């Protein structure tokens, strides 16, 4: 097991059975050290999985030696969302990952993690939040290397963890409106959980048929999949302590093993990258954000270093 490799929260609306099977396999076969569980996108989805199966799934993963962290809602507006968040903020014995400032109200001076959907752009904000009990920061996908390096330096000084997403679609925007429902000429209130039809999100193409963005309920993601495998060593050198892969329907055991192999130095980057490209992912791989370029770009490492 690799303590620096993590599996981020599942952003999509998969059937409960599929999720349970998925996490059982992760427990048994994946080298990830930490698993983030919990609905972060839409509170309407929680009755299907979170409200029923979460404790058992968490226990199963913990029995397999994984650290389990609950990740919380990114959008908190209605009473139900506020109540669930408050309940989660009070739980003992397990870290909560915060994706909305609302949670911070209840977490002062109690250990918690900052999620990749909360805005932490600079070292002063990081220090402030660490001073109130944040122990671990998952960074926003849009941050370039130079910014991550500064945050990494500060994190070392503060003794907090820094996590960067290295695989999967990148979250780009959140809204109060459900774009999945809108695509099907429904509203959020009568969505009939149509987001469940797209287990990796719904592709938006431009008018000239170029795949562009991915819709997941209120969330807009990149069409391309992040792949920062070539930058793992570099990231480690600038203070990144944890590497996050995001759940998708491709073979996640293969994905997490490939990252584990490269992190452990058992296979080289070229071989690891080749494995990711054998998974049958239709979308292109992207790494532009890290390179300070447009996020959808893929910049080969040689060019970047030159």
């Amino acid at each position, binding site marked *: 097991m690799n303590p620096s490799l993590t599996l981020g929260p599942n952003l999509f609306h998969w059937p409960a059975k599929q999720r349970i099977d998925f996490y059982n396999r992760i427990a048994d076969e994946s080298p990830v050290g930490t698993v983030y569980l919990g609905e972060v996108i839409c509170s309407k989805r929680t009755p299907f999985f979170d409200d029923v199966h979460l404790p058992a799934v968490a226990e199963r993963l913990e029995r397999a030696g994984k650290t389990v962290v609950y990740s919380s809602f*990114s*959008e*908190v*507006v209605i009473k139900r969302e*506020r109540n669930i*968040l*408050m309940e989660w903020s009070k739980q003992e014995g397990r870290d909560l990952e915060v994706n*909305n*400032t*609302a*949670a*911070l*109200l*209840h977490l002062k001076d109690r250990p918690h993690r900052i999620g990749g*959907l909360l*805005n932490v*752009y*600079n*070292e*002063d*904000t990081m220090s*402030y*939040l660490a001073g109130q009990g944040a122990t671990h920061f998952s960074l926003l996908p*849009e941050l370039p290397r*130079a*910014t991550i390096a*500064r*945050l990494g330096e*500060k994190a070392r000084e503060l003794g907090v963890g820094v996590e960067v997403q290295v695989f999967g679609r*990148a979250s*780009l*925007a*959140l*809204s*109060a*409106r*459900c774009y999945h429902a*809108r*695509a*099907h000429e429904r509203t*959020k*209130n009568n969505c009939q959980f149509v987001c469940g039809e797209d287990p990796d999100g*719904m*592709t*938006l*193409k*431009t*008018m*000239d048929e*170029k795949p*562009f*963005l991915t*819709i997941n309920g209120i969330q*807009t993601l*990149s069409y391309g999949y992040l792949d920062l495998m070539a930058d793992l060593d570099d990231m480690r050198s600038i203070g990144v302590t944890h590497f996050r892969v995001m759940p998708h329907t491709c073979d996640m055991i293969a994905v997490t093993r490939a990252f584990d192999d490269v992190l452990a130095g058992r296979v080289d980057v070229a071989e690891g990258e080749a494995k990711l490209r054998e998974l049958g992912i239709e979308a292109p791989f992207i790494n*532009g954000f890290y390179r*300070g370029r*447009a*996020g*959808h770009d893929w910049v080969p490492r040689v060019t970047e270093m030159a």
Partner: protein
Amino acid sequence: MNAMVKPELICPAGTPAALRSAVDAGADAVYCGYQNATNARNFVGLNFTPEEMENSIRYAHEGGTKVLITLNTFPPAGKVELWKEMVDLSARLGADACIVADIAVAAYIRDNHPDMRIHLSVQAAASSPEAIEYYVREFGVKRVVLPRIMTVSEIRDLLKEIPCEVETFIFGNHGLMVEGRCSLTTYVTGQSTNMDGACSPAACVKYERADDGSMSTILGDYMIDRFGPEETAGYPTICKGRYKCDARDGGYYAFEEPVSLNASNMLPDLITAGVHAFKIEGRQRSKAYVKKVVAAFREAVDSIMAGQEPKLADLIALTEGQKQTEGALKTKKWR
């Protein structure tokens, strides 16, 4: 109705000339920013030099108008100093409040300029009593600018629970993503809305006319919309474009139609809900536009407070033929 608080009218000033127009037209406060990444409308030809700000604050104060400085972007690591300098400058020039989004900027004001009012920007996306209470507790925030995602009835309930003033948008451009939580522009262009104050920057825009007369609007490498020969091409803002998906035949506005917010019919409801300030969007607009919009809303608010029917017909002409929406204010069906 006797207990009604008269809301302040908060007006956009992209330039010193627009600021003077807003002051002359009866703005209770104007909001404006400096010529750098510290504000979320960092466009060429907009915003204020320190000297312009100094003179503008003097002009506004002589007219009885407050000046709120927008420092509402998120400084990236290594660059926080610039935001701190702009806070210091604003305090020195006698600004009435700073509108901020980032925790580091708010903490700096609290620690170094305890008399400076902090308004929490819409970019901070504080949409629950808990989030707002957090900012009030930590930084002494005096007012929150609400995200454009709440209904009037939600705003009314919120006001009962929070220990600070509330400002809502009532007119102008209407973004669909939660502001402060959108990196679509970074994905397409490499420039960030949150860090650089850029949204669909003009330098990355192209218009291409095809042989069939259609016009494509392009941002970076992506076609944001394609207009027929009889349609007027709009600016390629990513969340206002037309796209295709498997669930639809042909292009559709995946996020929102190109509509403009106009909550003028809801002003009485917002006033009785207890909203403290109405915000008009449009720092990129001309001084003539600012003058007309501010004057119309000045008349409207004053009439409502006097128990009279407001005249709002003028505002329809100002929306430039764009479709109108009451946004999220009216109904949850918007979601």
